[in-house]
């Protein structure tokens, strides 16, 4: 009896099973450590060289956390979530947050760097040769990896090294007949074609001297000049040429009394100025509303037309007596399997006015991409072609999941086919497919490819050469940031924030509504 009790006690408190050390276990730990070590070995030296201590700290902390995570037996869910999350944070979350913060700045052409960089660019850019200043023979050379000037004084034949740190004497250089340096110990003198390839770098190099700067004048001469514009820290202004430009921290520019500014500015926080500009700047806001309306219409029509056509053929094929469905199915899926980017470009040419197939086939002479309405129609038709096979595929699948008894019951009850479809089949289809329709809407709302590769936003009306008739918010944003003209990264980031807000709102509303619908039908 007492024996039995002891046995029972043992059963209720079993010893924790000790998992043996399997080979897989050991190998995977070693692999994790090796990968971590390799990443550290590879990533640390450049960060140290660039002295970016914050990034270095982040990297070390992240590797320590990951190493700890995979070497303990705890935190099992995290082991599975971390790999994807690392990428998600680095290339999605961080860029989004960074974009939001950029939306509050004037970052873009003319405002790329900080104030010190702007001042030095203004000063070196204004260097003019002072009368009677010396002229040097110039050879561009490499000292290690950095570009330096080898300067020869034409009178004394003395050779000096010119770098952004200033002048330094060079010993043992061999001069050619033209007065240029041919060879110098410790330097690699660039030959003419090599120097020409680095012409931009050479033009930018400025060697500070006591009275001014030495800059290259072509590839074989250098002159000493003085900056005609100089920065005065006392008044926080730039003086020169009989004018004064005072720093305006709200604009990130040096502005003079007449309200003109110097070309080079710096990056500053502009608060909600970009947001206000999108909504109130007459040239922008007028287009913003139009663009937004078209953007909504494009996304909605794309979803509706593709779904209608895809479902239509799926229903037509969904009949027990239908023959040849295999062949039809392959033909209908082919557009989905063709490379979308290439077919978009092909469609652009099908709509070509002069030798496009559509005009030829139907004997038309329509300038499809040149008219506001016809271009919109063309873009939607192209998107229908690209999108309906996907809808066909998913409706086919969803149809097979609907029991035939349901529709049969309806027809026995005397319901006409159309009525049965509307009251039985369609609601069931919608329950299954709504999430896909919503994500299709979100995708088409930002379908950059469909626009960029067909119309490129065009046609452009004469009064607004930057906003085209078929421009989506996203294609306009990309043009703001990378298009022709000056890059306006700050404003482009603001547009991105707007788009995000719009898409998030729409999706939130629709998801909420769908949940209600599911309650009704499920």
């Amino acid at each position, binding site marked *: 009896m007492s024996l039995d009790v002891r046995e029972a006690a043992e059963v209720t408190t079993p010893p924790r099973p000790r998992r043996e050390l399997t080979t*897989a276990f050991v190998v*995977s730990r070693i692999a994790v450590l090796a990968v971590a070590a390799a990443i550290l070995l590879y990533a640390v030296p450049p960060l140290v060289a660039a002295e970016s201590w914050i990034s270095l700290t982040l990297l070390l902390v992240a590797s320590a956390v990951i190493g700890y995570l995979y070497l303990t037996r705890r935190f*099992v*869910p995290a082991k*599975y*979530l971390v*790999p*994807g999350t690392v*990428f*998600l944070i680095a*290339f*999605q*979350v961080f*860029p*989004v947050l*960074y*974009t939001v913060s950029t939306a509050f700045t004037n970052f873009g052409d003319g405002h790329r760097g900080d104030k010190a960089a702007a001042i030095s660019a203004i000063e070196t850019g204004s260097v003019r040769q002072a009368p009677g200043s010396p002229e040097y023979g110039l050879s561009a050379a490499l000292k290690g990896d950095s570009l330096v000037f080898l300067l020869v004084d034409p009178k004394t034949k003395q050779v000096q090294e010119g770098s952004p740190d200033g002048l330094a004497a060079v010993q043992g250089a061999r001069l050619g007949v033209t007065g240029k340096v041919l060879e110098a110990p410790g330097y690699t003198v660039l030959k003419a074609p090599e120097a020409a390839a680095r012409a931009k770098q050479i033009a930018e190099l400025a060697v500070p001297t006591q009275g001014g700067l030495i800059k290259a004048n072509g590839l074989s001469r250098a002159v000493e000049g003085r900056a005609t514009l100089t920065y005065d820290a006392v008044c926080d202004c730039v003086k020169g040429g009989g004018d004064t430009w005072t720093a305006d921290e709200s604009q990130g520019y040096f502005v003079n009394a007449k309200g003109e500014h110097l070309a080079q500015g710096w990056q500053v926080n502009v608060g909600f100025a970009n947001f206000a500009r999108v909504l109130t700047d007459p040239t922008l806001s007028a287009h913003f509303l139009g663009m937004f309306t078209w953007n909504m219409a494009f996304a909605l029509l794309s979803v509706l037309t593709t779904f209608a056509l895809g479902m*239509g053929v799926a229903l*037509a094929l969904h*009949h027990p*007596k*239908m023959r040849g469905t295999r062949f*039809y199915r392959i*033909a209908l*899926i082919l*557009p989905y*399997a*063709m*490379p*979308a*980017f*290439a077919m978009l*470009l*092909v*469609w652009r*040419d099908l709509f*070509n006015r002069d*030798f496009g197939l559509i005009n*030829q086939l139907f004997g038309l002479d329509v300038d499809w991409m040149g008219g506001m309405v016809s271009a919109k129609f063309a873009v939607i038709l192209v998107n229908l*072609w690209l999108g*309906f096979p996907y809808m066909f*595929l*998913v409706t086919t*699948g*969803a149809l*097979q*999941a609907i029991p035939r008894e349901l529709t049969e019951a309806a027809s026995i009850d005397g319901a006409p086919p159309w009525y049965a479809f509307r009251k039985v089949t369609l609601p069931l289809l919608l329950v*299954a497919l709504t999430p*896909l329709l919503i994500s299709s809407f979100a995708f088409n709302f*930002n379908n*950059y*490819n469909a626009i960029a590769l067909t119309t490129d936003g065009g046609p452009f009306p004469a009064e607004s050469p930057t906003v085209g008739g078929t421009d989506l918010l996203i294609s306009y*944003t990309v043009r703001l*940031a*990378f298009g022709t003209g000056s890059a306006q*990264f700050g404003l*482009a*980031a603001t547009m991105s924030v707007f*788009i*995000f807000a719009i898409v998030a709102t729409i999706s939130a509303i629709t998801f909420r509504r769908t949940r209600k619908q599911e309650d009704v039908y499920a």
Partner: protein
Amino acid sequence: MKLALRHAFVLLVCAFALFPILFVVSAAVNPLGTLASSDLVPNGASLDNFAKLFSSDTYPFARWVFNSVFIALAASTASLLLSMFAAYAFSRMRFAGRRVGLLALLLIQMFPQFLAIVTIFMIFTRVTELYPAFGFNTTWGILLLYLGGALGVNTWLMKGFLDTIPKELDESATVDGATHAQIFWKIILPLVTPILAVTALLAFIGTMSEFLMANIFLRDAESKTLAVGMYGMIAGDGRNANFGMFAAATLITAIPTVSVFLWLQKFIVSGLTAGAVKG
């Protein structure tokens, strides 16, 4: 009669689906090789365009095919694994922050990565300075970028599918002493082949067609993908003259996709809808 109507409708849609493809085939075999001379019915047949494509000095086409297929295969495989890991955790384990994590994924996914293209451009300008091997014009750089979107829709799709697989399976395996890693690799993974196939296919097609990022990222002729390279082929002056080559290139580009498609065909319908219904 009704059946005839169905056939007529489907045939009409088939014609709509096929005629641009026919046009491409016709242009590809058109010996003149210009857009102006292309028609729905080819006026001659030759493989000149294909030959020109592979012998061209200005367009390293073979290199582009390699880049594209490599990037698409690597990106879809890697993102498949990453999202499968996450889906396994979300479906099978209960932990603090699980709900928040799932919702956060959905929300983040709504901010398309290319809306942040400006910032990504700036980040990679810095990366290019520090680690040239992962910077602009590199396969590894753009792969990293694509993996940023690995979690998200895929994870939701797979989680929906995993939820339908009975938990008793892994419970009995745990009783038999299997570790979570063994359950994942030996029990779960073989059971989710349909959804893996579909996600892989979608990821493959998506990566092959990706244009915006690649166009900003890959500027060297040698590093371009098909999307970027072929766009350049018929940009500006080349639009009419290179059209035959472009059409031939389009057909070649379709080969990997169509083969993957045919290979995975039997999984596609069931996989797509399983994810949709349960999503």
